[in-house]
């Protein structure tokens, strides 16, 4: 969560990180566009160790993140990250709201 409170969620393979967080009822992650890379309201910070395991960012995601006032090194849109085995135990923090 934004305030650092931790939630442990069980993720199903092939779903996105955004869907996993949203379906756990965590409303802080707004994910307004429903996962079509259009709104940047599912912005999260990824721990450094996991960054290199993620699929690379496309231009649309990059553009959207560029527009956030809170972009930092580990920024990603969680709707663009699909859960795979290699991401086991991934830790993400929800970015502040823009």
């Amino acid at each position, binding site marked *: 969560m934004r305030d650092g409170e931790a939630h442990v969620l069980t993720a199903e393979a092939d779903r996105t990180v955004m869907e996993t967080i949203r379906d756990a009822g965590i*409303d*802080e992650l*707004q994910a*307004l*566009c*429903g996962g*079509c*890379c*259009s*709104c*940047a309201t599912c912005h999260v910070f990824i721990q450094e160790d996991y960054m290199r395991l993620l699929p690379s960012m496309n*231009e*649309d995601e990059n*553009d*959207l993140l*560029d*527009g*956030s*006032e809170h972009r930092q090194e580990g920024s990603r849109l969680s709707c663009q990250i699909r859960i795979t085995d290699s991401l086991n135990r991934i830790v993400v923090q929800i970015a502040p709201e*823009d």
Partner: protein
Amino acid sequence: MSSSPIPAHVPPELVRTYPFGHGKSTTRNVFDIIDELHDGPAAIYAKELYRERAGWVFRKAADIRDILMDSEHFSSEDVAAFAKLTGNWTNVPLGIDPPRHAFYRALLNPLFTPSRMAALDDDIRSHAQSYIAKFHDRGHCDFVREFALEFPIRVFLGMMGLPLELTQQFLQWEKGLIQAATLEELKVSTQAVVDYLKEAIEDRRLHPREDLIGDGIVAEVRGRRMTQDELIGYCFNIYLGGLDTVASHLGHFLRYLAENPEQQALLRARPELIPNAVDELMRALSCVTVGRNCVKEREICGVTVKPGDRVAISMMLAGRDPEEYPNPREVDFSRKPRSISFGHGPHICLGIHLAKRELRVALEEFLKVVPPFRIPDGSVLQTDCAVVVQLRSLPLEWDV
């Protein structure tokens, strides 16, 4: 107004008159009407929804999200009548379905990001201040006519690089687009706006500048620039999207604060709650309905929606759905609602960060400058219940 015939696949018991649609108005509080609809069936078939046209209304937020995500069955193309009346253009990107929609959206998203909108803060604030300065000493105002309607137009004109003196002209055109009683009237108003936008685009080609028109001219969709028709659709879409929607929400918000002095006092005492209050008021007092056309048969809530059927998606209903929000009638500024008032799915409001900023700044400035305000005794508030539900006027008074 005569209704279109009810198709055979519509169960007769679901056919209802619906309080919202072109030309309808009420003196009741519209949100009480919304709450009553939540006591009824999950799906109704509304007579006379869009002028004489009938259509489905689904009241649950979950169904509304579902429809908004399902562009395979529910299309946005040809939903708004404007474009087809005056030529070959379409609203960009509102009138375009996925996957093509995403190409345009990728072009537009960077123009409306939070950081770009944050840069407009000072302009937005000074527009709000200049309107409030005109009436705050007087002890009363008509908030809708003297603030809400014009304020978003000024912000829009600034972003488009158009002269602020056009505020009244744009307001007149906007009324023509929204209140047109016949398609012929709608055509005339649409044509006037399109003609003006064409001139503005031409001017910007000759004198390039960095504003939304200039940015639109040089922006690329899949490696090419937009055509003239696409540019018109883009400018028209921005025009249409941001004016009466912000104005209408502001009217409902201020009415709520006037009628609920303890909530008004809370925001005065704790202005840091205003950003959250905007989200909560957007949920509870949302006032926009969007449309989709069914293009492939689908079952929802036990009814069959067939190709050619119109579906009205009411954000007003979604925001007050008791299955989605506990105590939906209660406005609670500490609630952090995940609302769908700005839409959901691919067509989610492009101007969301701008709109929220305008609403927040308007509330901040109004509460800062104007003393505790109320609606004068005996006022009758008339609300127009079209696709954007809007108070016709909102008289407010305060002690000076």
